[in-house]
């Protein structure tokens, strides 16, 4: 079972590497933010998988903080991008 979980984690990690393309290249900043959110969700899942691969169950707190902070960063930066150009307009 451990090997199976490791293989799943590697596949998800490669997925995250592909999604990083959108975060790096993405034409608009919103694309990059979306890419960060997606990569973050994938790494969150890998954190959960690594917890069970290492069989150290109290590591789940890290996954919790991860989810909370991903939400915080995405919403805060999206709000700032929303308010972006108003100074020049006024």
């Amino acid at each position, binding site marked *: 079972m451990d090997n199976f979980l490791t293989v799943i984690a590697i596949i998800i990690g490669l997925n995250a590497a592909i999604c990083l393309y959108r975060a790096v290249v993405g034409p608009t900043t919103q*694309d990059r933010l979306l890419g960060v959110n997606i990569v973050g969700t994938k790494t969150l899942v890998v954190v959960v998988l690594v917890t069970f691969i290492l069989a150290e169950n109290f590591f789940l707190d890290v996954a919790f903080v991860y989810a909370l902070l991903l939400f915080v960063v995405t919403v805060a930066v999206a709000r700032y991008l929303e308010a972006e150009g108003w100074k020049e307009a006024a």
Partner: protein
Amino acid sequence: MSAARDIVAGALCCIGTFFFLVGTTGLLRMPDVFTRLHPSTKCDTLGACSVIVGMAVYSGWSWELCKLVVIACFLLLSSATCGHAIGRSALRRNIPYWRRQGKETGDGNGA
């Protein structure tokens, strides 16, 4: 009993990985922000939740089950909110919509 639990957990992990792949494909291939939001947030939420539920099945009855279910619920709420916030910020910054190249209808509700 333990073998059945492993099989269910493995199946859920495979489903989650499949949806992750679908979401990645959508994120790479779609033409603009609004269409990219559509596959990536939904598929990612479903994929992450099914992998986490699979891990909850794998862990059995314990405190980890409780924590994993809470994480999955939080992800279900927060991922949708994040998608909404990104889409709204893109809408407010007047990022142009994608139009099909071949037939320019011009008024925006064609194609």
